[in-house]
């Protein structure tokens, strides 16, 4: 059995979420990693160092500079027949491209798996994580996206895989990259942070997120938000934790002014320790929290920042 993992990167850095997909892949067979990009040799070198990776395939071509789904899927589908499984992490990039790969191969995609039960059997959350389905695939090639929180990251160092160049599969001409507006932050990424502090509608404004940032600075935490806070325009969309946003499972998740709608809980309830700070003692978030504090966040959060100084 041989498994192809489609690496996620920005032509310079390999995204840490790729490491979790490698762990899932290693349960299935020998792991090859595809690095498709433009001027991305450094990423291929990083991928070759991942523990457990046997081979790196490098497709370096302008058609893959922004990993447009139409172009990237054509390449992955062309390489896929040499493998039993093709995996990517269930990030916005992975979700964008992998169903195209599956459709080109005329196979089902198994989305967002949280466990590997066997070569053809996988566990995946459905209904916002309120149920776990075990599914078995009858297709010759399994196309899979991996929920990063379900698998530990593979070691980023320790491997010494050979890098093999593969031919590009051309530019479809269907879509063009126009631009991007990425949030810049010195803080860790939400999906790989050890500690996350998130704010909800109770924050009342975007400015008030500075209160959370002060706590985040003390804890080296990432800052997240509920859908309500994003919809209200307090913070950008990439802050959103939940069923349709980012799925996170940090060591510590602090939910501030978040009521705890099902769709938010779906994105964070696998966190190791959950703290909820909410003035409403009936808020559903308090039922999943390990430690809950019923208090006005505008008092409690500055107090928390001060207490962490001590």
């Amino acid at each position: 059995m041989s498994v192809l993992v489609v690496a996620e990167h920005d032509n310079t850095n390999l995204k840490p979420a790729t490491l979790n997909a490698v762990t899932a892949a290693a349960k299935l067979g020998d792991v090859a990693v595809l690095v498709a990009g433009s001027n991305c040799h450094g990423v291929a070198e990083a991928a070759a160092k991942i523990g457990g990776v046997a081979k790196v395939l490098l497709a370096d071509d302008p058609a893959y500079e922004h990993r447009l789904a139409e172009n990237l899927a054509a390449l992955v589908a062309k390489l896929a027949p040499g493998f039993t499984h093709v995996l990517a992490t269930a990030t916005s990039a992975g979700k964008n491209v992998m169903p195209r790969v599956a459709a080109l191969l005329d196979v089902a995609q198994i989305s967002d798996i949280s466990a590997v039960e066997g070569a053809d059997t996988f566990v995946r959350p459905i209904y916002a994580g309120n149920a776990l389905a075990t599914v078995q695939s009858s297709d010759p090639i399994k196309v899979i996206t991996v929920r990063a929180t379900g698998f530990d990251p593979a070691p980023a160092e320790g491997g010494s895989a050979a890098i093999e160049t593969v031919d590009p599969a051309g530019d479809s001409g269907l879509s063009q990259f126009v631009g991007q507006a990425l949030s810049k932050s010195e803080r860790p990424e939400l999906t790989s942070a050890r500690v996350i502090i998130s704010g909800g509608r109770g924050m009342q404004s975007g400015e008030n997120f500075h209160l959370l940032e002060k706590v985040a600075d003390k804890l080296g935490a990432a800052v997240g938000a509920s859908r309500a806070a994003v919809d209200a325009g307090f913070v950008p969309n990439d802050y959103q934790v939940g069923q349709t946003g980012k799925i996170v499972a940090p060591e510590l998740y602090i939910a501030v002014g978040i009521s705890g709608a099902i769709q938010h809980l779906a994105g964070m309830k696998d966190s190791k320790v959950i703290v909820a700070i909410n003035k409403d003692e009936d808020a559903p978030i308090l039922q999943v929290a390990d430690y809950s504090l019923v208090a006005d966040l505008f008092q409690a959060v500055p107090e928390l920042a001060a207490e962490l100084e001590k």
Partner: protein
Amino acid sequence: MKVLVAVKRVIDANVKVRVKADGTGVETTNVKMSMNPFDEIGIEEAIRLKEAGKATEVIALSAGVQQCQETLRTALAMGADRGILIQTDAELQPLAVAKLFKAVVEKEQPQLVILGKQAIDDDCNQTGQMLSTLLGWAQGTFASKLEPNGDSLTVTREVDGGLETVALKMPAVITTDLRLNEPRYASLPNIMKAKKKPIETLTPDELGVDVSPRLKTLKVVEPPPRKSGVRVSSVAELVDKLRNEAKVI
């Protein structure tokens, strides 16, 4: 331009889903069903394109059991012009749905197809991408803004790091994200009017599509529950617990 919008009938977003005791799935009898929220956003966007003079006709499309008619009626009450139901009692998986939709697209020749980015029941997030692929079209997934301009469509997409903008060759497939728009509520007069709008019924056989599932669900279980937590009375106590009991800071 003609716009085709896919709508799925799902368990209402506010219902607490229960796993069946025999582990075959989740309880759906006597449970409130609604239109998948991302599909409401799709219908809304299509209607806005029509109101802006950019779309000429909005067709709502669904696949599944006979009761999907109700979901289509909701779309018609919001403002879609007509509906198409591919009726079947068979279990439908995303690849099969994409094949069914492709057959309808070939019949109807829309310039734009809009789907929700995912359905809140199976959380698959596949059908739009698959449909786009089968048609050989461009895709703009997780869209938060659409700007049609002639033969091209500029799409702002919600991605993990922020926003990305792509230009797509038309015809194209779009999948909606939450910030694309806020769907309207259907007014009572429009609900009445919707009853008279046509819904065409097709079958997978008529469309020549094999919908056999590729994935077999072996079992469905509830996730392990979290152990119940404790109330703390002060910030100082909270920090103490996190430091000395949970040892996470």
